[in-house]
């Protein structure tokens, strides 16, 4: 192993939250290193976002946008709690609504292109967001380390001493020492086969902080994006039909019937076609259609624009000239749809409400360890409707500030050589093992468990099965993985081996949390417990490692202002009452 580098603050993850955290830490005068498992600016989920930044109307007016001044931070706060089914940590929402205008203004000042929607959202594109933030990083000459796949947090006693991972191109284990560490690595969508997220989002850092002893929170909460393209392969995983459905078109079952419009209350159909409630509602409805046998041949439903008048499409094309969105030209698809065809779409793993437990200063339960953005848990409770882009900007800046301030009063932790050696031999053992399972097969096996048992609608029996299978894989299969390829530079089997270990650990945390939560709430739906139960389950689920074993506990939700009603309700009933409460 080469000599370790030393910095004050390490930020792991180069999506929006990591970029924003690194900017903040650097500007507070501490040496900062941004580590990416890919390349900063070319990896992470931010670049692929739709995207919008949400803030309250009065806050928008404060920063010079024509916002509605009768809106307020209090109303925005209230709505996020209702949307999150009261599971949110309300202190995190307070920070979100408080800082959203300042973070938005800063992005505009840095040159982000945008359209203000007149209500609560600034529309932009993930590619532009990413570019603006990456430019700010370059301008500051912040040190970047690319293709370093961080797998573990180094600790010294109860504090942080740095990180360690695999330098993928060099093919060696590499450590970087620091006083504090910020984790900003997004979700773990790639633990599923079908996802809208890019490669690399496999939960490696969720697993790392769990192994280091920090708490994971509400890991059962997974949002699915309902109309993601299943076929052709070149467009598989693309969310463009999801972007379109807010303007026009509908999802159909195999007889061509628009199931949401036909089978649900009009108020549910309305919020599903006009707000980001669409993710939860369409995913649930589409999954029920597939389960009753009315899905498409590839196991999804159909997105159609057959009944949309051509001049309405022409108007919409002005927003996406030539039907180009992000970097893809969808004109072939749009022409095919205009001819009356329907593209097969399905729910895809899309956003994680749960994650690393943090407080409003982005502190985890380990001193010197911070988390920001999607990898953290608690802000959106059981269902996200407000923007995840606002989340990465607000929480990224908070984490960068907390980390910088802490690093100023912390000495550099000593390197525990035996800890480092243990991690190194955990990663390199796979090369010496001859007859074990292949990481390629194991990855497929692990993803199949997620696809089958941790999908949109869960059952107790399925979750028990998933738990048993994952426990067996972690104790019997992962330690015996055999890598055939001896070259260590860009060794895909090695990458798969480290990914499958973290995927299995994170999925186990998710399956066990989902099994423990014997109710349905927001995106977590149990067919054996269909009611949302505010009498018993206004509780967070915490996962932590105790004496080498995964342990689950529950604790009351964090309430500052809005007290939840002690009631029980079913899925549709809950949606209808939420619509009323939100005045939508």
């Amino acid at each position, binding site marked *: 192993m080469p000599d370790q580098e030393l910095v004050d603050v390490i930020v792991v993850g180069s999506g929006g939250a990591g970029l924003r955290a690194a900017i903040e830490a650097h500007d507070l005068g501490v040496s900062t290193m941004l580590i990416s498992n890919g390349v900063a600016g*070319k990896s992470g989920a931010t670049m692929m976002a739709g995207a919008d930044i949400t803030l309250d109307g009065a806050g928008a007016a404060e920063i010079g946008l024509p916002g509605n001044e009768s809106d307020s931070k209090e109303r925005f706060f209230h709505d996020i709690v209702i949307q999150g089914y009261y599971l949110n940590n309300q202190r995190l929402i307070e920070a979100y609504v408080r800082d959203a205008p300042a973070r938005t203004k800063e992005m505009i000042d840095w040159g982000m292109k945008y359209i203000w929607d007149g209500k609560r959202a600034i529309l932009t594109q*993930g590619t532009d967001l990413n570019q603006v933030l990456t430019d700010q990083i370059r301008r500051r000459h912040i040190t970047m380390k690319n293709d370093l796949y961080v797998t573990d947090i180094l600790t010294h006693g109860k504090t942080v001493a740095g990180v360690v991972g695999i330098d993928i191109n060099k093919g060696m284990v590499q450590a970087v020492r620091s006083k504090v560490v910020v984790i900003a690595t997004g979700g773990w969508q790639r633990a599923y086969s079908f996802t809208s997220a*890019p490669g*690399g989002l496999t939960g490696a850092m969720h697993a790392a902080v769990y192994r280091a002893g920090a708490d994971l929170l509400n890991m059962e909460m997974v949002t699915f994006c309902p109309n993601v393209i299943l076929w*052709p392969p*070149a467009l598989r995983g693309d969310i463009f039909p999801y972007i379109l459905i807010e303007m026009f078109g509908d999802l159909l079952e195999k007889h061509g019937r628009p199931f949401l419009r036909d089978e649900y209350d009009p108020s549910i159909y309305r919020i599903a076609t006009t707000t980001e409630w669409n993710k939860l509602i369409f995913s649930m409805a589409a999954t029920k259609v597939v389960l009753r046998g009315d899905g498409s041949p590839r196991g999804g439903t159909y997105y159609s624009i057959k009944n949309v008048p051509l001049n309405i499409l022409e108007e919409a094309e002005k927003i996406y000239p030539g039907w180009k969105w992000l*970097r893809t030209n969808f004109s072939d698809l749009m022409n095919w749809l205009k001819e009356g065809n329907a593209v097969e779409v399905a729910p895809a793993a899309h956003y994680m409400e749960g994650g690393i437990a943090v407080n409003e200063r982005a502190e985890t339960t380990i001193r010197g360890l911070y988390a920001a953005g999607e990898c953290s848990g608690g802000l959106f409770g059981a269902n996200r409707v407000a923007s995840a882009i606002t989340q990465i900007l607000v929480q990224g800046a908070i984490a960068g500030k907390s980390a910088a301030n802490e690093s100023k009063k912390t000495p550099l932790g000593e390197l525990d050589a035996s800890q480092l050696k243990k991690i190194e031999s955990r990663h390199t053992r796979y090369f010496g093992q001859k007859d074990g399972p292949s990481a*390629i097969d194991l990855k497929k096996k692990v993803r199949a468990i997620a696809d089958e048992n941790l999908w949109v609608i869960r059952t107790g029996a399925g979750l028990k099965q998933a738990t048993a299978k994952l426990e067996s894989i972690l104790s019997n299969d992962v330690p015996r993985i055999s890598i055939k390829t001896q070259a260590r530079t*860009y060794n*895909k089997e090695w990458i798969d081996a480290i990914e499958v270990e973290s995927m299995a650990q994170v999925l186990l945390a998710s399956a066990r949390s989902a099994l423990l939560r014997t109710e349905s709430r927001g995106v977590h739906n149990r067919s054996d417990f269909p009611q949302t139960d505010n009498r018993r389950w206004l509780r967070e689920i915490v996962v932590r490692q105790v004496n080498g074993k995964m342990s689950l506990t529950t604790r009351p939700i964090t309430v500052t202002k809005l007290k939840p009603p002690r009631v029980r309700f079913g899925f549709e009933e809950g949606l209808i009452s939420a619509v009323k409460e939100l005045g939508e």
Partner: protein
Amino acid sequence: MIKVRVARFDPAVDSSPHYQTYEMPLEPRMTVMDALDYIYENLDPSLAYHSHTSCHRRICARCNVTINNKAGLSCHTEVNGDLTIDPLPRFKVVRDLVVEGL
């Protein structure tokens, strides 16, 4: 069945690149990335091509390779028949199709 000819090169061991040819089934509208995944998963796990943080959406462009003598993104280029895949020219090769600085 199609023949996929891939440039193999490990700078630590080889003095120059050589081609290796794989035979595999052609699926309707499959992409070059699908073909490389098929080879890696079924025929030869030692093949190196960028995919660990690939976006599959033409955004990151890290899966850029030379396909039948023309640069193209493996995630979006559809396969119609036999293929020859090389790394992008003028980049330093890490191994096989993976290059530095992309």
